[in-house]
């Protein structure tokens, strides 16, 4: 998906109607991301509204060459992290990351068929069990189709961290699916 980058020279001429044109198509994605982050529909709704308010206010100082989508997601995430739920999450996030241990790859052959067979609910459960730091990266990469650089900008982390978190997130999602469906299959055989 092509990223929306404000071209050089347009910045001074940007008006509220330009903001509306750029921002409104992102609303659904922002809301979905907010719901994944905070879990509560009302909180997600407030979060999106506050994001729009803040970004509209800051639009006049929007820097040229910045990716608009990454900028909006960054505002949403920062707003969330300073909220009560976000602060609670931030206190546990470090622990989540440190607690993750890279387990050795159990088998070489990929369980492609199992992944394809996985229904939406199972994959949602797999995404939901991810630590927030991994969950947000995989959602931005695979759902919002953002490039690594855009994700790094949105989350304010180095691009290398984006890559390692994404790899770990996918590995955990894959393992959740394979273990759940593979486990069921074993039980059935017995």
């Amino acid at each position, binding site marked *: 998906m092509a990223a929306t980058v404000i071209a050089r020279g347009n910045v001074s001429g940007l008006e509220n109607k330009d903001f509306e044109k750029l921002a409104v198509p992102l*609303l659904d994605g922002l809301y979905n991301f907010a719901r994944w982050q905070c879990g509560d529909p009302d909180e997600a709704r407030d979060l999106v509204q506050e994001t729009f308010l803040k970004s509209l206010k800051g639009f006049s100082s929007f820097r040229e060459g910045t990716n608009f989508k990454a900028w909006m997601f960054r505002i949403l995430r920062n707003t969330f992290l300073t909220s009560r739920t976000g602060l609670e999450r931030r206190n546990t996030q470090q622990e989540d990351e440190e607690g993750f241990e890279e387990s050795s790859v159990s088998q070489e052959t990929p369980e*492609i068929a199992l992944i394809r067979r996985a229904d939406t609910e199972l*994959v949602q459960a797999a*995404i939901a069990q991810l630590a927030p730091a991994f969950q947000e990266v995989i959602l931005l990469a*695979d*759902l919002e189709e953002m490039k690594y650089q855009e994700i790094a900008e949105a989350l304010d982390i180095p691009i290398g961290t984006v*890559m390692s978190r994404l*790899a770990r997130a996918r590995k955990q999602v894959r393992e959740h699916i394979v273990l759940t469906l593979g486990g069921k299959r074993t039980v059935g055989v017995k």
Partner: protein
Amino acid sequence: MTNCEWRKKIGLYVDGELDPRAEQAIAGHLQGCVDCSSAVLEQQALKKAVRVAGKRFTAPPDLYASVQRQMQPKNSPRLFVRPWLKWSALAASAFLLGVITFGLLSRPSASNATVAQLIDQHVIMLASANPVDVISSDKHTVKPWFQGKLPFTFNPPELVAGSPFTLVGGKLVYAQHAPGAELVYQVRQHKISVFIFQSRNVSGEPAAGNQTFVVNGWQEGGLQYYIVTDAAREDADRLRALMEDANRS
């Protein structure tokens, strides 16, 4: 277990993060490496699964309205209004109301606004990088996806081999504040949107005269169906016949 040097780059390849030269090189390697090509397939399947499952929540329609309101400029000054001006304004309002009422009553079809909304929805789908929320050519995947999201059910037609139509997927839509389904079909290079709502919420025959899109509407079993497409009218009629057959009660 393979020690293939390319293995670490597979994530980058699947995410389109490699430079063109490296991408070409890995594409060549995949022709001959079963392990790596399996890993690519797995990553692609995983990405697709996350993309479909990750789109779990839809913004409530009134959130759009709230956000739109937020973006309206709040600099309209308060005016002192003289009493005689109030009466004049009241009279003008009454006149305007009469004109609007007459306009509404004399319109050929009250469904024009709905059809306009659905055409907009179809155009948004055409322009979107994620045109559907559930991506599948299998009706047995698409139909269950709507379960729990809509207060009604419907049957996408069974497309036989050789049918010119391919199911692309579906998504949740709103018209007149009511939820509905949008099924997207492909016919040659054209996309066709089939919208389905409860007829008590959304109904009416589309007015003729839209030169750009073919719009076809009908009711069946308490549901209102609309087809919107830039494909030929014959294609819309054929898909309508298939939908009618599949949903005949």
